[in-house]
Every structure is written in structure tokens, then in C-alpha cells.
């Protein structure tokens, strides 16, 4: 079990309040991702749940029990750190066994669980090595191994993949997802990478300056961002946002169109522009279109086969049914 409820939780460092009153429920077995730009309070929120920071006011409930004043070691949560935070003086085996040794489990039980974790994480050959002898990916797996053997109520991940290279990151992302499916344990994952958030989460919590901007499934957030911040943050490349006359035509202060909702043509379309740089991904190509009469360049996603050269004139047609509209406060107009 691992239902986590934050009830009007706040956090202040001295005079400055980094988390204003915040309510959030993470259901048992859910994969929740906290995402937001750096300094948005996502790591602080995770550390509050972990107990590594004291809650200034409000309550944190874990499975219905008030855990606000409970020390981290007694909350039944496991955490995976960005820096892996392995014990450098212990072998991989001892690292993984450490939390169980602290919990005073039987040695036979400890051995069995270490073996099982090592097997499922492909660490069997490295059990006697020290963390310093391992690669980044292996170290991260040891950190995950150390977390799973405790059979915690929930896993907390603090940007666990930021120190890995791109290819490894994708692989580890899948491994963590596999683990979630297998264990069906609550996981809270902090990242600044919205691609990680989109691909992993059951529930995304978008944070800005300690405020929750929106909570929802990845597709809810993508399809119906509640405000301009979420609209701009979720999605890669980011949504095209336009103000002025074009927005007024749609009875809005700002309108947003995702790059894939604009079609390109050499000859016809209501908007005309000049092709700037293009990013060829093979399957898709992103064109950055300038001189359209709008304030910012427009990004368009086209099929990988479509070929326009730098400086070509191009015509664009937005899909009218998927235009997002926002009012003067930046809030979504239904």
C-alpha cells in the first residue's frame, strides 16, 4: 500500500515560502511525475514526502497515517537520488543489503533478496565490486536495487536519470517502467524533462514556484492544458503561441497550436512564411518558419519525406478544431 496525501502542506526556508499551501493525492500504485522548470519546488516537495525536509505546516499522510513528524527512516519509503548516493566504502552486495541490515532482517532473508534484486537488475556479476568500479547505469541500478529490497510503500525518484547519457536514459526509463508494472508500487518521480514525464507518468503534476499548475494524465495535459504555462511546458517541440489579431479572431487573448496540427504546402494555405532551420529526425521533420507576420517563429511538424530548403517560401494551414484558446489571465477558455 502506498497512498500519499498532502494536506495544505507548506514549506518555508526562513522568510521565503517555497511551497505555498498545497493539496495533492497520489493513489496507491500510481506512477506520479512532478515536473517543472528548475527552482519550481519539485525536489523540495519530494524531500518533504521523504521526510528529509521538515514540513512548515500542513499534513502528510501515508496510507492514512499522519507521517508529518515521522523521521525518514520510519516512513517506509525508498528514495533513488540523482547522484545515486551509493555507499562508496561498501561492495554492491553490501550496498543493496544495507537497508535490510538496518531493519535487522535474517541474514538468509537478506541474501535471498539481494540475489533476487541482483538478478532482476543484471547485477549478479558485480556484487563484489565497489560502486567506484561501475558505470553510471550500473550504479543507478544498484541504487534501484537498494530501494526495491526494502519493499517500500512507495519509491521516490529524484531526477534519477539526469546523470546518464541519452541512450542509457531511454533504456533505464523502460526498466523503471517495467519495475513499476511488476511491483505495482506507488512511485513518485521528479524530473525537469517533460519527455520523461510524458512517457512514464500515470499522473503528471506540473509545478511552478511551488504551485501546482495542473494535475492530470499525460494526454489530458497535452490535449487540454489548463493555462499558458502548462501549454508551453508540455510538448516537444513546444506549442506555438500567438497573440494579437489572430487570437482575437478566435475570441481569445492568446491562441496555441501544436506543431503537428499545422500542415505545410508549397502552394496553398492561409499563412505564408520563410523556412528557417529544419530538424530532420528521419520519421519527422521540424521546420521553423519565419516572417509569418506573427511575433515568434512557428514550429511545424511534417512528415520526414517532406523536403523544404532553408529560405523556401512555405504555406501553412492550422487545424481549426485543435486550436487552444487562452484569456488575458492565461487561463484556458473552454
Amino acid at each position: 500500500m502506498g497512498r500519499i496525501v498532502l494536506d495544505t502542506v507548506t514549506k518555508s526556508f526562513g522568510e521565503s515560502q517555497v511551497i505555498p499551501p498545497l493539496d495533492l493525492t497520489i493513489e496507491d500504485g500510481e506512477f506520479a511525475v512532478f515536473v517543472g522548470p528548475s527552482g519550481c519546488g519539485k525536489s523540495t516537495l519530494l524531500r518533504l514526502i521523504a521526510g528529509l525536509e521538515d514540513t512548515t505546516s500542513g499534513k502528510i499522510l501515508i496510507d492514512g497515517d499522519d507521517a508529518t513528524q515521522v523521521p525518514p527512516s520510519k516512513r517506509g519509503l525508498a528514495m533513488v537520488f540523482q547522484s545515486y548516493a551509493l555507499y562508496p566504502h561498501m561492495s554492491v552486495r553490501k550496498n543493496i543489503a544495507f537497508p535490510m541490515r538496518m531493519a535487522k532482517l535474517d541474514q538468509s532473508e537478506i541474501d535471498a533478496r539481494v540475489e533476487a534484486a541482483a538478478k532482476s537488475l543484471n547485477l549478479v556479476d558485480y556484487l563484489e565490486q565497489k560502486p567506484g568500479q561501475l558505470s553510471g547505469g550500473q550504479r543507478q541500478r544498484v541504487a534501484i536495487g537498494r530501494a526495491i529490497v526494502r519493499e517500500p510503500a512507495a519509491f521516490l525518484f529524484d531526477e534519477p536519470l539526469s546523470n546518464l547519457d541519452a541512450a542509457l536514459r531511454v533504456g533505464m526509463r523502460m526498466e523503471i517502467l517495467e519495475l513499476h508494472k511488476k511491483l505495482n508500487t506507488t512511485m513518485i518521480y521528479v524530473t525537469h524533462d517533460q519527455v520523461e514525464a510524458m512517457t512514464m507518468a500515470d499522473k503528471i503534476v506540473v509545478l511552478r514556484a511551488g504551485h501546482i499548475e495542473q494535475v492530470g494524465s499525460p494526454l489530458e495535459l497535452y490535449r487540454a492544458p489548463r493555462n499558458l504555462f502548462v501549454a508551453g511546458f508540455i510538448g516537444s517541440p513546444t506549442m506555438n503561441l500567438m497573440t494579437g489579431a489572430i487570437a482575437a479572431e478566435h475570441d481569445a487573448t492568446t491562441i496555441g497550436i501544436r506543431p503537428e496540427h499545422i500542415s505545410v504546402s508549397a502552394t496553398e494555405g492561409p499563412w505564408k512564411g520563410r523556412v528557417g532551420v529544419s530538424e530532420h529526425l528521419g520519421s519527422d521533420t521540424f521546420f521553423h518558419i519565419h516572417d509569418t507576420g506573427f511575433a515568434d517563429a512557428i514550429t511545424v511538424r511534417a512528415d520526414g519525406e517532406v523536403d523544404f530548403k532553408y529560405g523556401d517560401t512555405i504555406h501553412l494551414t492550422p487545424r481549426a478544431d485543435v486550436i487552444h484558446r487562452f484569456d488575458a489571465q492565461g487561463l484556458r477558455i473552454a
Partner: protein
Amino acid sequence: MAIVAHTSRFGKISRPILAWAVGLLFFFPIFWMVLTSFKTDADAVKPEFLIFFTPTLENYLNMTENYDYWRFAQNSVITSVFATLFTLAVGIPCAYAMAFNPSRGTKDILMWMLSTKMLPAAAVLYPMTFLTKSLGLFDTHFMIILVLSLINLPIVVWMLFTYFKEIPKDIIEAGKMDGVNTWGEVTEILIPLAWGGIASTALLCFIFCWNEAYWTVRLTTTEAATLSKLIEGNRAPEGLFFGRLSAVSTAAVGPIVVLGWFCQKQLVQGLTFGAVK
């Protein structure tokens, strides 16, 4: 462009010469002391016997016959060992708290502790003597251990603090998440990780305790008197007996020189703490 440091030919030759010269300069007094310890008191003051003389063990025999050298040595060992242990027992938790749970006042406390080292010892000589005598602690091991601990605590806390600061906070927090209590954080994680630093700190502390003379001379008479007191006790009213004094000094610094020789690596690390990772 990469910056490449070239050592000139002059530098290649002059640097070792300079290093040796400085080394010999520092070594000379010790060498002279050892040499003098094998001369008679009469020979010791004669310039013609500076290097060439008839060596004698007279001074050493005299020392062991007239004084109980081993008791002084034993007192030095007892007070230095226990003072070092006590200092670490207080200093480790103290530095741990300041390194990993700093408060707004931590920097000020550190500065304040260091500032106590700026107080001239002579300024508190009278109150200390009065206090120890009225408490019945004068010339006791307990008092010397306490005084040596208090003298060295500031520098020990500073050194340990610097070492502990180099341990990533994440590792301590991982320990908290893994179910470790504060005691476990110190014994299971902190001490094993900072072992090198703790060892060099302990070593330096031990050396400082061993060599301390101001208080050990003034707060003891016989019972808790250390080797410093033995040296001091050889200042006879009728003049200085250089041969005898040298023998006593050699016997006093000998153990610590040998210890330092074996622990050179740790000592260098300790003396340059914080500077090199």
C-alpha cells in the same frame, strides 16, 4: 590553447637544492640535539668537540638512574592517548552536526571556537591553577587529559568539519532513507567514509598533546608529569647541562618522531586539509 608549465633547467636544479637546504635547516637542531646527547656536559659546550668527540651513554644512564624516565613516558602516553580519544569523541559528533545540519549560527560558532586559540594561555594561568588546586585536580591525569582535550578541540573540530564537508550530503540522506538512526549515520557511514581524515586529525592531535608544555609543566608536579616536565626539570639552578638536557629531550621527542615517520602520508594529508582532494 592549453597552458603548459615549463620547468627551466635552472628550476630543475635549484628546486631540489632549495628543498634540501630547507630540510637540513629544520633537521639541524634535532641532529645537534641527538649529537649533544652523546657528549659529556663538559664536552657539550666546547666548540672543538662540535662534530668529533668521544661518544658516551652517560647522559642516558644518568637519566634512567636519577629519574624515572618510564613513568614520565607512561604519563605522556596516557594523557596523549586519552586526550586524543576524548577530543575525537566530542569532536566527531560536533563536526558532524555542523557539517550536515548547519544552523544560521554554525559559521559563528566555528569562528568563536577558533578565536579561543587566540587567547594567550598565560592570561588564564592564575585562574586555572587556582581552580585545579581548589578542586583537588592539580597534578592528576584527569586534569591534564581535560586540559589537553580542550586546547585541541577547536582545531580538531575544524579539521573534521572540513573533512566531513567533502562527504556528499546525499549519502547521509540515503542512509536516513535506508533506516539508519543518527548513531548509525556516524558509525556506519560517516566514520568509514572520513576514515583517512579522522586518522590524520587524531595523529596531529596526539602530536600536539605529546608536545604540549605550557600546561603540563605548570599543572603537574610528579603524579601526572609528562616528558615535557622531565625536560623542564633538567634546568638546574647552577646552569644548563646541555648533554643531560639533550638526552632527555631526545628521549622525549624520539617516540613522536618515530610515529610521525611511519605516518608521514596521513600527516601531510592532515596538514593540507581541504586544500587537496
